[in-house]
């Protein structure tokens, strides 16, 4: 059963996976392109290392962005055929809804591995193509694992959102956003009128989400191919 669910998702997503694999493979290579051999001496190594970090910094935002795109697309794809048929087929199958959703999610998660593998191979190729100073190491596997985890997290969030009808999703999202906006307004107002009370809700929220141990830390953590 799981094999067949995996096959249907593979069949509906396989063409969509190709551009993601190409971009995931090419991104690490793009990030290190144009870097020459490391010159002799401390200063030369320092300059080369700086050039490497600068180039990586320029391309760095593309990695989490690609991970989110991969995860979201895989999640939307996982439900697309069911949405097209108003979930009637899925609901008529002799399987409990939680089990069906779990297996569907598992199948989609396996497909997310494919772009991560592409990125891993690209990172290995990029690491092999550059000349790095002696004290510096490359971490292609760690980068690929981070990319996979970020994709998986994005996939999980979008999978949950896409599981319901568009109406349900809109209600859930708008309620959530509305609640955040309302809380922000209330804390801003309280900060203005209550003496000694100062609280920036938005900053706190972002920090709580993307900094350790926030659930989305994987997007903001260390995406380096090269490190000391």
């Amino acid at each position, binding site marked *: *059963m799981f*094999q*067949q*669910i995996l*096959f*249907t998702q593979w*069949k*509906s997503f396989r063409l969509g996976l190709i551009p993601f694999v190409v971009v995931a493979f090419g991104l690490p290579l793009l990030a290190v392109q144009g870097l020459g051999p490391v010159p002799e001496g401390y200063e030369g190594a320092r300059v080369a290392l700086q050039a490497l970090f600068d180039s990586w910094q320029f391309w760095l935002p593309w990695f989490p962005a690609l991970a989110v795109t991969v995860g979201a697309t895989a999640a939307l794809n996982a439900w697309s*055929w069911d949405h*097209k*048929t*108003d979930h*009637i*087929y899925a*609901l*008529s*199958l*002799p*399987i*409990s809804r939680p089990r069906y959703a779990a297996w569907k999610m598992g199948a989609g998660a396996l497909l997310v591995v494919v772009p991560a593998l592409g990125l891993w191979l690209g990172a290995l190729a990029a690491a092999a193509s550059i000349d790095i100073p002696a004290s510096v190491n490359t971490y292609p596997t760690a980068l690929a694992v981070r990319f996979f985890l970020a994709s998986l997290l994005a996939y999980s969030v979008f999978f949950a959102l896409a599981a319901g009808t568009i109406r349900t999703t809109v209600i859930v999202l708008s309620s959530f956003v509305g609640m955040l906006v309302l809380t922000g307004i209330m804390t801003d107002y309280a900060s203005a009128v209550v003496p000694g009370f100062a609280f920036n809700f938005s900053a706190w929220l972002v920090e709580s989400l993307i900094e350790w141990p926030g659930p989305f830390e994987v997007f903001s953590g260390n995406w380096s191919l090269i490190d000391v």
Partner: protein
Amino acid sequence: MSNAIELNKVTYTAGKSFQISDLNLHVPEGAIYGFLGANGSGKTTTIRLIMGMLRAEGGHISVLGENVPNDMPSILGRTGYVPEHPHLYPGLTVGETLRYHASFYKDWDAEWSYELVEALHLGARRKVGQMSKGEKGKLLILLAIAQRPELLILDEPTDGLDPVVRRDVLTAVLDYVSHTKATVFISSHLVHELERFCDWVGVVDDGTLVIELPMEDFKSGIKRLKVQNPPAETDDAPFVVLNRTFIDRRIPMETWVVRGWRDPMTQYFERAGATVCDVMDLDLEEGFVELLRSSRPSSNGYGE
């Protein structure tokens, strides 16, 4: 005889304007039960309640002796379902669809399913998304019967199909039923189609069951009478008057459509000083139309 499907006082509200209210339904095991109703009368909603796709707000539903919705996976494993609109995954081929579907059913008959693919001229390599409505209809029937179900629930399975495909579809169903004694619950607004092979009939209108009885009783019990000097009141009549129409306002002659008619009932008219000039059989479609006409609140009993 136990019932394959049983609904007791089931209620469900869909939106602001439509409600299924206190719906009782009893589909005997082994029966071919025709579920009749006009478009929008609640047939598909009822079927989705039976299939556990919608949750009833009140009442009790049992299918094959199990409880809806608690025992759904088990019930669905024993039930073949053909929905009103084709619901299959468009990107799969027929062969892939069979394999996908088969993986959910322990009694799936793979050999027979491929025989049916040949018999119904489907082609295992055809993509579902590129198939015609008729071909999809045949594939849905194939999927429903190749899992060897004890119960087949068919929601307007032949709606929009050409006569040849319609015959193929119904033949496949009847062939399966004749070998397995499975129960069939088939909804349709194509009354004449059900007349040929259903042995039970239920009529639903505006979310309410109008009548439920064996097909023979339905067909033989609904008559059109030509009555001379008809009585004004019919409260004590031993039958149900569905409709009465003036033939000509200048003469005391009316056409009555009645349910539950038996020949000795002519005595009722004789006692009332009336004469039954003619008793005519109605086919299922005419009976269905008259039943619906009489069940609607706006009906005053006198048609024009």
